[in-house]
């Protein structure tokens, strides 16, 4: 559909599409929306590296590709290393990398491929200071292999290897704070983002593009299939995750923290509002919900303090 010029002018998100129709994501997939925004932000002068994850499939089988950009499919745990190698090659060959007119090297990996098996390669990538962007789309479990827990799965969530049952066995660990691990590397730019706030996400992508060195964005990306949620509720869920402070949006830039959302003045919404739309939390007892609520508020206070002191 042709967008009228007057409408185009008002759009803060680039109108061009570089993500083709016909990709193979499930209905309501947050990850596919995220990928679309990344392509909008960076355009086709981009080299993607995607490891084993849902996005491998979303991009389409050979000889098709849903991405209007070059894409190297790689092994599960290698995103950080492969983008390092691509960046090194570009430099050896004299290309401009990153910046407004440079080539964007983008690692696009799931939470499993980032928080767990790929953590070592991610750490190496961050620590060596390559000019590339690593985006972790966080759907809070291994979806591609059929919904198993990852280090990023929250407390109380049902997955196929943390099922709920007679003995009430489910995920007993809080979500691993990958972004904190990333920040510990003291890279120039790291941020959280959400598919419910595309302007914010694209702004962060642009910032990552302009900032030399490694950047990292953790993108909250609901997965109706794995979360047992209605396919038309993904954006709402992503928004609730922010409004409940379950997944606050913030930036870390050269030692400084800045909270983007939710408001630091208002009390976050109760966590139940986020939980109740999803089948994966149905085994949680009242006590479980309280445990999660306390954790969320504790982490939120921590972040607010960081922004206050190091803002």
């Amino acid at each position, binding site marked *: 559909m042709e967008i009228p010029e007057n409408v185009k002018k008002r759009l803060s998100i680039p109108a061009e599409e570089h993500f083709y129709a016909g990709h193979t994501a499930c209905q309501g997939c947050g990850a596919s929306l995220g990928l679309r925004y990344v392509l909008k932000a960076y355009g*086709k*002068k981009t*080299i993607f*590296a995607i490891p084993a994850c849902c996005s*491998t*499939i979303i*991009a*389409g*089988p*050979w*000889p*098709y*590709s849903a*991405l*209007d*950009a*070059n*894409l*190297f*499919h*790689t*092994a599960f*745990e*290698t995103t*950080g*290393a*492969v*983008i*390092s*190698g*691509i*960046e*090194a*090659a*570009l*430099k*050896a*060959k*004299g*290309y401009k990398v990153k910046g407004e007119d440079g*080539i964007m090297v983008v690692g696009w990996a799931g939470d499993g491929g980032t928080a767990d098996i790929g953590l*070592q*390669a991610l*750490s*190496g990538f961050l*620590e*060596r200071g390559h000019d590339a962007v690593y985006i972790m789309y966080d759907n809070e479990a291994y979806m591609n292999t059929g919904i198993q827990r990852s280090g990023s799965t929250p407390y109380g969530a049902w997955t196929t290897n943390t099922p709920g049952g007679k003995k009430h066995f489910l995920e007993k660990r809080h979500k691993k704070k990958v972004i904190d691990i990333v920040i510990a590397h003291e890279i120039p730019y790291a941020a959280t983002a959400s598919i419910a706030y595309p302007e914010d996400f694209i702004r962060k992508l642009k910032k990552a593009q302009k900032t030399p060195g490694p950047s990292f964005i953790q993108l909250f990306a609901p997965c109706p299939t794995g979360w047992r949620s209605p396919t038309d509720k993904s954006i709402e869920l992503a928004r609730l995750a922010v409004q409940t402070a379950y997944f606050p949006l913030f930036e870390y830039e050269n030692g400084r923290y800045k909270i983007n959302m939710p408001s630091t003045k208002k009390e976050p919404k109760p966590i139940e509002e986020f939980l109740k739309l999803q089948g994966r939390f149905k085994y949680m007892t009242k006590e479980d919900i309280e445990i999660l609520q306390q954790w969320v508020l504790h982490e939120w206070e921590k972040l607010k303090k960081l922004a206050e002191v190091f803002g």
Partner: protein
Amino acid sequence: MEYKPIRKVVSGNYAAAYAAKHARVEVVAAYPITPQTSIIEKIAEFIANGEVENLQYVAVESEHSAMAACIGASAAGARAFTATSAQGLALMHEMLHWASGARLPIVMVNVNRAMAPPWSVWDDQTDSLAQRDTGWMQFYAENNQEVYDGVLMSFKVAETVNLPAMVVESAFILSHTYDIVEMIPQELVDEFLPPRKPLYTLTDFDKPFSVGALGTPADYYEFRYKIEKAMEEAREVIRKVGKEFGEMFGRDYSQMIELYRTDDADFVFMGMGSLMGTVKQAVDVLREEGYKVGAAKVRWFRPFPKDELYELAKNVKGIAVLDRNFSFGQEGILFNEAKGVLYNTDAHPIMKNYIVGLGGRDFTVNDVKKIADNMKAIIEKGELDVEVDWYHLKR
């Protein structure tokens, strides 16, 4: 330009590093492991001293990442190099498949070292031979000169057929032993090995494409077949490149199996790598003592030199296969391969497998002489004593 070699006394590892430098590699991503370490240290030194231009050195956090980074670099069009050994190579295993599957002509030096446990840093070929089915070509060097030559030729072969190649040298026997190596002036290396022309590169933005997407049962099979076609093509390319190398620099590598005094031999010793230096020396001694023996050094293990083996086997009564490696539950790996090749031919010499030198156990001229006596007796009797002989076993 007339060829005047530059003679340097270097270790096998330094020979490898110089070859990488002369090949003008653009990305080196590597992780240290004994006895490979001095290869990558030397390359870092080249950079520190400003002896190389446009070389990006990625000091990765593991061998798995070393190969992954080389893969990324090679896919982006660079000439990529790494080196490893034993545990490091084993950790890379998954990515070795990735390199060949994505048709990337990465060259890697592997220093043959025994796998743990028990910990051992000494020579053993099982590490590289365990990577047999990864779609990598494998060149086994006998001495430091062959390490140097092997790296240069491997790049040329790899970039012609779009498959990765491994140059294998033995722990300490070559990696840390100094010897004279004739190096080639840079201009002539450049003539022999021009800049890489990649099959594809991720920097081609006009026609976006993806590498390594899901291959359904409708297509996966053909992808495998194409790798095999490239391996077959590699045999001819190897011979051609080996011949060209000989014409330019005086050392001919056109034979995938180097034959040494085999013309009128009753039986030959067959093996790979540095142990064949010992064997050649022993052949000279045995010849003086009246034994009609020769040596057959398998230079390229992948692709496997079937034709050369058949030609050899037609003309001898016996082959003693010396394996510095073992495939548990079966036999030495070279022995297994060689027997397999000959089954459907009319060449059936008596073949016996001697397992030698595992984990750096010394293997000497005297050992070759003992093996010669044993082989001679077997051939005279026309029957094997044992098929697989754990030669050094303390009994």
